[in-house]
């Protein structure tokens, strides 16, 4: 699958003739943090559209605004300029509850309240769908079970959350997000705390879900090797703009890596013709 790109400013084509409508779309989005008169501009003008069935790896240095962009795409915050559209509808026109049935966010950090078991925490992801006052529906139970299974956390179901390791917690958080049965999944550094096998397994899970259920996924990644090999589309955020958007072998050039991340990168090709990218050093 090749990367899908819509040049900024171009009018959207008719759904029948071309691309499906983006699940979430940022157009010319600017965002700044303001505190006591100090303004820190994070995003200057960002254009990014993510469609059903896509997995986009979001790359950028620390403080480049990746988390902010995720929160904007989730319509959790409003942009200062430009607009966010969710399923073609302006973000401001969605209620919190409506959004929560379609968009799930895996935050970078989350304290899990002690005393709950894993299955209970994952079931909290069902809040936006809850229809019964005091009990869960069969649909809720099935969704929780599927989410646990998909996040490879079924064996943790009965464990108290305070006994989980960092990697196990991460799988539980993924399961909670999946229990929302979202059409858009926004993952903020999902592979942090995970061992190698679980990093690869998580990306594979997400990849399977996007293919089988058409979920759109945006994942903030830090590992260039992971991004260059496991993801079919990457978007690179630098100085408040998307500076590259497309297939990693095309857009993740050594030159771009040096310019954005300030590291020299080595590239190599596998026997299957896959390109590997590995950081080589901070010297130019």
């Amino acid at each position, binding site marked *: 699958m090749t990367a899908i790109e819509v040049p900024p400013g171009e009018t959207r084509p008719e759904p029948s003739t071309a691309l499906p409508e983006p699940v979430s779309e940022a157009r010319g989005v600017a965002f700044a943090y303001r505190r006591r008169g100090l303004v820190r501009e994070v995003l200057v003008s960002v254009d990014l559209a993510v469609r059903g069935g896509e997995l986009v790896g979001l790359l950028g240095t620390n403080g480049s605004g990746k988390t902010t962009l995720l929160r904007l795409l*989730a319509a*959790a915050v409003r942009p200062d300029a430009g607009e966010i559209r969710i399923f073609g509808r302006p973000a401001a026109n969605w209620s*919190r*509850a*409506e*959004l*929560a*049935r379609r*968009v*799930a*966010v895996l*935050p970078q950090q*989350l*304290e*899990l*309240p*002690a*005393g*709950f*078991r894993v*299955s*209970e925490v994952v*079931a*909290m*992801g069902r*809040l*936006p769908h*809850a229809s019964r*006052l*005091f*009990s*869960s529906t069969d649909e*809720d*139970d099935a969704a*929780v*079970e599927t989410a*646990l*299974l998909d996040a*490879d956390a*079924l*064996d943790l*179901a*009965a464990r108290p*959350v*305070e*006994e*989980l390791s960092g990697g196990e*917690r991460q799988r539980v958080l993924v399961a909670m997000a999946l229990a*929302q049965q979202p059409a858009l999944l926004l993952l903020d550094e999902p592979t942090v705390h995970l061992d190698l096998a679980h990093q690869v397994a998580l990306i594979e899970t997400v990849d399977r879900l996007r293919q089988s259920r058409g979920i759109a996924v945006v994942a903030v990644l830090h590992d260039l090797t992971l991004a260059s090999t496991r993801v079919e589309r990457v978007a690179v955020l630098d100085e408040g703009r998307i500076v590259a958007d497309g297939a990693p072998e095309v857009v993740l050039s050594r030159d771009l890596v040096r310019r954005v991340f300030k590291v020299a990168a080595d590239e190599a090709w596998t026997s299957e013709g896959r390109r590997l990218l590995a950081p080589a050093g901070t010297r130019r």
Partner: protein
Amino acid sequence: MRAAAVPRPRALVGGPSLTRSGLILGSGVLVLLIVLIVAVAAGSYSVGIGDTTAILGHRLLGIPATVTWSREAETIIFDLRLPRVLTAMLVGGGLAMAGATFQALLRNPLADPYIIGTASGASLGAAIAFMLPLLAPALAIGSATAWIGIGVVQVLAFVGGLGTVLAVYAIARGARGGTVTLLLTGYAVSSVLAAFVALLMHLAGNRLGVIFGWLMGALDGADWGRLAMAAPLVGISLVVLLIRWRRLNVLLLGDAQAAHLGVDVPRERLMLTMVASLATSAVVAISGTIGFVGLVVPHVLRLAIGPDHRLLLPASLLFGAALLAVADLGARLAGGVPVGVVTALIGAPFFLWLLVRSRAVWGAA
């Protein structure tokens, strides 16, 4: 998929099982009934358990019974002790339920229902009411007659408690702060109000004892009228909090995640705070400031049965009610010491023992 080989933990999905919840709440109801009968039967004029049960069954449920008791016993049981025991239960249950809510809202096990100003506001209201005859002699006649049924004290305490929470919330909101700002604002406002209470006590002269007794928590004046004023407010609060158990659970994940799960966080927080404060102010108005129940009961129950509010809220109501009724029975049998003294004397050491014994259950996982 290797996990497919694992037996499907159906029972593990979706929270505590119905049988477990039923057992916990069922035992709570049973304990409460036993406490009710014992607490109504016991006292300086002792009525047998059998007669007590028969009187209660006869008067409350219309169960036919041959009268084996004196009219005196019936009057004591029905007009004096029953309203008092029910008041203790309403107050204990209301405080414990509100305490559970505040502990979740503030994500802090040290939170109690008074934490953002209810107690100090209600105390000031009550102190002003007690001082009215001195401050404005013209009102003396009015306030004296108002003691029949719902008095000025109850009304001013209720208004003071709820009004203070509203003020604290408004100030904290103006400061655009989070939970910590709310707590600090509550502390600051409470300090100011406490200073006014102290000033009034300084000026109180022979009324000092009355104010002091109220501050320690007193159920002496319990009657059906006051019970009828507070019970509906606690009932409304209970219903609203209970049907929002999922949101209370999700707020434990933090505001950002709660928002991602569809909760309108500022609105939800305001509503839950006000509803819990409504119950708190209502019970404080009829009982004075009784400490420890609202702190200890939900905390201990959380350790025992877990933090799920679907179970924690009704369990807090039941066991808080039972605990305060027992404490009040102890206070009565000890010759009428303030019930607040008893709850502190029993509650605080028990709480310490628990703290030492149990692992920290509120920290991050």
